[in-house]
């Protein structure tokens, strides 16, 4: 018998509809779990128990009325980069300490319309810049499967709270891997949709040609249910697509026999942990056992994704973060002149990694360097995209690792930016190409730390990702619900 907080969204939705439980009871169970795990995990910058219980009571009324959407009454969490009206939204930065948006992000509004229950705003690397959640200026989030290690990042709090059981689902953002890498390190399902599938309106911008919002959940079908709620056109984001949104849940359960999967040889590199390679190879064999065909493919420009990303992203960062001057919002510092006040506000409000990226982007865009760096990187971006275009002429999806390592110890990469950036080496290329990617748990290393399998599909083919991931999940025993006994937080409660 599962505890209430351990149910899947689908199970909870049924229990809510037959009246076996109320959303208030379900929410209280999640808040109790949050209270039990949070001292160790620290996934939330700000839990919102009062908002949650009020939302749950409203959801119960709606459920009784009988026309509630699937997520009605289900507790979820939002990365603290996503605007919530009247609720502090910090981006993990001292710059925005105390900032209360006067509007909800489009994705927040969609969840509100569906009747979800907000349990809190989750920790992240400052302005989503990092791969370990260690650049947050608020707190250190721990990996629920290995409290001595990072949860990954930048959406580390969103991944950790779902793994720990203190939310049924969460939203993260992924610019170069910030959903997929923490999903891999925390043993949960995480997906980055096609660029343009989900509106970015009200999400604090990092790199606008790359940013995309997506869900974390404990099972593939739960993840599909959340994406169904988020996806679709929003006229306030001109890059959001008006393409019809298919039922992603219906894709879960489709046979994968006959599907052709590509295994890119460039994604098996020196420096990759042997346990990760073994698990990925075993996962490919498992998918072949389910009737898919696996073929080796080449994505020849893979090694250029990291340097390309580390030009394009900082250039966009330097432009997007120019707005933080402490005047309309933010924490201002005094200065003798307006320019000095700006520089002091930004010098004091931003942390080291944010300043590093603003500097890099400002340099690359400055007079005399623009063509050599930015335009050249955009041309290489074309080559990277063409690699995928050619691969998808042969295969339906690509199967590869999500991260070269499992969760690493705190501080291991903080003094060496390049080492930290390499943590995203398997997720950056798909981001540059605007492709959807999904990570599903596929094993554990000898220390019981999770390993994730990354699936990449052509633009707008999220259905293929859910189809393959669901078939894999159902035929293996690596999902979070089957591995709760490995969690190293929240013991002493119900087991």
């Amino acid at each position: 018998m599962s505890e209430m907080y351990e149910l899947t969204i689908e199970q909870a939705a049924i229990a809510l509809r037959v009246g076996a439980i109320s959303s208030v009871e379900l929410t209280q169970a999640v808040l109790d779990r949050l209270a039990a795990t949070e001292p160790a995990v620290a996934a939330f910058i700000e839990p919102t128990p009062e908002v949650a219980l009020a939302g749950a009571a409203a959801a119960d009324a709606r459920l009784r009325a009988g026309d509630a959407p699937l997520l009605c009454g289900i507790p979820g969490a939002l990365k603290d980069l996503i605007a919530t009206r009247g609720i502090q939204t910090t981006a993990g930065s001292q710059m925005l300490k105390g900032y209360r948006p006067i509007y909800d992000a489009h994705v927040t509004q969609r969840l509100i319309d569906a009747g979800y229950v907000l349990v809190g705003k989750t920790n992240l690397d400052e302005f989503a810049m990092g791969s370990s959640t260690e650049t947050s200026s608020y707190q250190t989030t721990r990996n629920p499967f290995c409290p001595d290690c990072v949860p990954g990042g930048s959406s580390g709090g969103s991944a950790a709270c779902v793994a720990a059981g203190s939310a049924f689902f969460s939203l993260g953002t992924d610019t170069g891997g910030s959903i997929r890498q923490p999903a891999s390190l925390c043993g949960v399902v995480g997906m980055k949709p096609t660029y343009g599938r989900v509106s970015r309106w009200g999400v604090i911008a990092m790199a606008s040609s790359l940013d995309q919002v997506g869900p974390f959940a404990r099972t593939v079908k739960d993840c599909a249910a959340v994406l169904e709620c988020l996806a679709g056109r929003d006229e306030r984001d001109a890059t959001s697509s008006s393409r019809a949104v298919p039922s992603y849940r219906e894709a879960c359960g489709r046979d994968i026999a006959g599907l052709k999967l590509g295994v890119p040889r460039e994604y098996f590199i020196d420096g990759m942990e042997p346990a990760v390679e073994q698990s990925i190879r075993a996962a490919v064999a498992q998918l072949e056992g389910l009737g898919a065909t696996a073929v080796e493919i080449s994505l020849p420009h893979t090694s250029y994704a990291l340097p390309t990303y580390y030009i394009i992203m900082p250039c966009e960062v330097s432009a997007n973060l120019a707005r933080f001057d402490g005047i309309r919002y933010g924490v201002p510092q005094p200065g003798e002149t307006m320019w000095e006040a700006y520089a002091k506000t930004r010098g004091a409000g931003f942390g080291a990694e944010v300043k590093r990226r603003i500097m890099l982007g400002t340099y690359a865009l400055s007079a005399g360097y623009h063509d050599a760096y930015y335009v050249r990187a955009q041309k290489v971006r074309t080559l990277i995209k063409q690699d995928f275009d050619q691969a998808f002429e042969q295969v339906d999806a690509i199967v590869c690792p999500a991260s070269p390592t499992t969760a690493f110890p705190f501080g291991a990469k903080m003094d060496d930016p390049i080492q930290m950036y390499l943590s995203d080496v398997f997720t950056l290329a798909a981001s540059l190409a605007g492709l959807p990617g999904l990570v599903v748990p596929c094993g554990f290393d000898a220390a019981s730390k999770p390993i994730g399998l990354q699936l990449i599909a052509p633009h707008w083919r999220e259905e293929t990702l859910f189809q393959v991931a669901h078939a894999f999940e159902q035929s293996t025993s690596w999902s979070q619900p089957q591995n709760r006994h490995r969690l190293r937080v929240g013991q002493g409660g119900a087991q």
Partner: protein
Amino acid sequence: MQMSREEVAHVAWLARLALSEAELERYAGQLSGILSHIVQLQELDVTDIAPTAMAVEAGGNVVRADVPTASAPQDEVLANAADIEDGSFRVRAILEESA
């Protein structure tokens, strides 16, 4: 690829970032390291390759109907500012009086 402390200071000024001496030293080293990694893009022949600004086709210009809608209330817009006066954001003078 080496970035001097003076170049870092110039870029920090362009970015409106007040940095300490220690930060200038540290960023000179770190940014040089990152630029040395990035330089490998120069290996590639990109002749006749078009740049990609956005990887997914947006499908031409996107415009919305030009219909007035309600603006956010003034008191809410000002609520997050540290310095307001008479319903406005208060900022420093940007022009100095000549002597």
